[in-house]
């Protein structure tokens, strides 16, 4: 857990004035002390490497039904994770699944970050009618389960990797916008914003030069927590058969095929179950660690 030792060691050298530390250095120094978050970071790095490797090389073609291969093979030298219900290599499919999970997670987070930050800044900084319109819209959708909206929107947009990210972002950006709006609301009243305005800074400069950097901590934390939500939603959709079109492999769709084959072969369900659980755990631990490090005020 996050036990941050006091800053005493900084004074050990005899310096009286505390050296100035930026947000990033300060945050990462605190993150380094969090062993769970570090372990999560190591796991996620490995996962990213696997996903990048899968771009160029997988043991077999993940979509190919291999000739002279039995279905539901257990782990063996030729197929380390076995084969699936059609005789496809599960390791290759799991590697492709990692790629898709990470693309969906990080991609959705990027969309949410962009839209949520811009909309939130505008609402919180300019206030007035524009804030009212945005707030009413967000309040209408407040509480509507994101997965319902995602299902409808995804089918309307058509299946595909890009559309699934848009469909999940459709409700996820609202939490981010709400958060940023609140930050902008309080920060715009500070003296340094007044000073900036008095010295002739334009709104854009104030928004992106002053307000945004000063609310980065909570934004980073929120953006991290969007990743596991997006991965989970994609897995759910794929599990229900509403996700990434086959023959592309998603952990959710492998799990779904594995669930149907549970009495025959538990392995097929086991791999995506373990991979998904570990990945979501890692992102949640990393998010908790980042919250302790970058946003110490809202510690849970």
């Amino acid at each position, binding site marked *: 857990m996050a036990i941050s030792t006091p800053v005493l060691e900084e004074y050990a050298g005899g310096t009286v004035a505390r050296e100035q530390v930026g947000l990033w250095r300060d945050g990462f120094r605190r993150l380094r002390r969090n062993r769970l978050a570090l372990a999560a970071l190591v796991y996620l790095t490995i996962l990213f490497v696997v996903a990048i490797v899968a771009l160029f090389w997988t043991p077999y073609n993940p979509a190919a039904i291999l000739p002279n291969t039995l279905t539901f093979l257990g782990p063996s030298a030729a197929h380390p994770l076995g084969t699936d219900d059609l005789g496809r290599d599960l390791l290759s499919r799991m590697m492709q699944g990692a790629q898709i999970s990470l693309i969906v997670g990080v991609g959705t987070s990027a969309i949410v970050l962009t839209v949520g930050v811009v909309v939130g800044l505008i609402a919180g900084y300019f206030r007035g009618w524009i804030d009212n319109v945005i707030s009413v819209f967000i309040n209408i959708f407040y509480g509507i389960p994101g997965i*319902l909206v995602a299902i*409808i929107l995804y089918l309307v947009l058509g299946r595909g990797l890009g559309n699934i990210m848009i469909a999940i972002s459709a409700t996820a950006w609202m939490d981010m916008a709400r958060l940023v709006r609140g930050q902008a609301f309080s920060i715009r009243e500070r003296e340094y914003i007044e000073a900036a305005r008095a010295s002739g800074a334009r709104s854009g400069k104030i928004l992106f030069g002053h307000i945004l950097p000063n609310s980065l901590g909570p934004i980073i934390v929120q953006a991290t927590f969007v990743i596991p939500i997006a991965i989970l939603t994609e897995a759910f959709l794929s599990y229900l058969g509403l996700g990434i079109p086959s023959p592309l492999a998603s952990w959710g769709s492998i799990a779904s095929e594995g669930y149907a084959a549970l009495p025959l072969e538990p392995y097929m369900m086991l791999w995506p*179950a373990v991979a998904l659980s570990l990945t979501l755990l890692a992102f949640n631990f990393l998010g908790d660690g980042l919250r302790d490090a970058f946003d110490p005020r809202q510690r849970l």
Partner: protein
Amino acid sequence: MLTRGTLIYIAQRLALIVFTLIAVSFLVFITVHSLPGSAFESERVHGKALQLVLHQYGLDRPILVQYWSFLTSAIHGNLGVSFQIRGLPITPLVMRELSVSAELGGTALLITIGIGTTFGVLAAMRQNSWVDYTLTSIAVVGYSVPSFVLAGLGVLIFSYWLPNVTNGVISYPAIWTGTYGTLVELSLPAVILGFYTSGQVTRITRAAMLEVLQQDYIRTARAKGLKSRVVTVRHALRNALIPVISILGPLVISIITGSVIIENIFGIPGLGKEFVESILGADYNVTVAVFTVYALLIGIANLVVDLLYTVVDPRIRY
């Protein structure tokens, strides 16, 4: 308790719920109707016959007119007819499925609050001990492990590995018979659904307990010589439960989200299963109806939670 101010507040909130319902149903109506395909397209019905069927169901009118007729009949409690099962009235269908979902969701909510508050209090009482670490880790695992993974595990254990215990399927004599099944039949889906959300409750309870336990009046109570159990339950837990009530609203939303998955995995004929089936079958009316019912449920849940505040914490007034 029900002062004039409270009544005005309730009226305002109800008006907001109605406005939300209209806005949400409108957006969903428009979106769903732009879905490709139609429930009536088949190799047997095309051309003039298709036009006739569409006309019969009023689908050849402009979309705004269609929405208006949906809205006016919805106000009278008529949510239209299904396209998949031609002409089946939706309102009774949705009401039956709502009772099934409510049975599942209500059980899960009780399990969530039970597990969550117990774990949270225990973790806070033994802060930074192995008990604390174990329970908070279970909480994170709870909302990290997807429910279909737990469902697979549960089915594997109870139906394949321990068939003698469960006779292959999970069915025991009834404790309580609801609209869908007995409490025991529901136990596996409900526990899985409840476990997912219990993590949030554990964390909130733990944080609130830790904060309350540092207050002066707790020290006073201890100094008076009250037993630790009395201090914990009567002085600390009561005040620590206020933040827990504040997340009841989001909790209901999480459970609804989870129930969409759980119902589809276990084949429970509730709203969530109907939602997915209706959208796959282009049964627009059902999709809109289920979505609107969900929005209504959430609106009411949030209102009830906000009113609960005033009961638990008399300092809060509306």
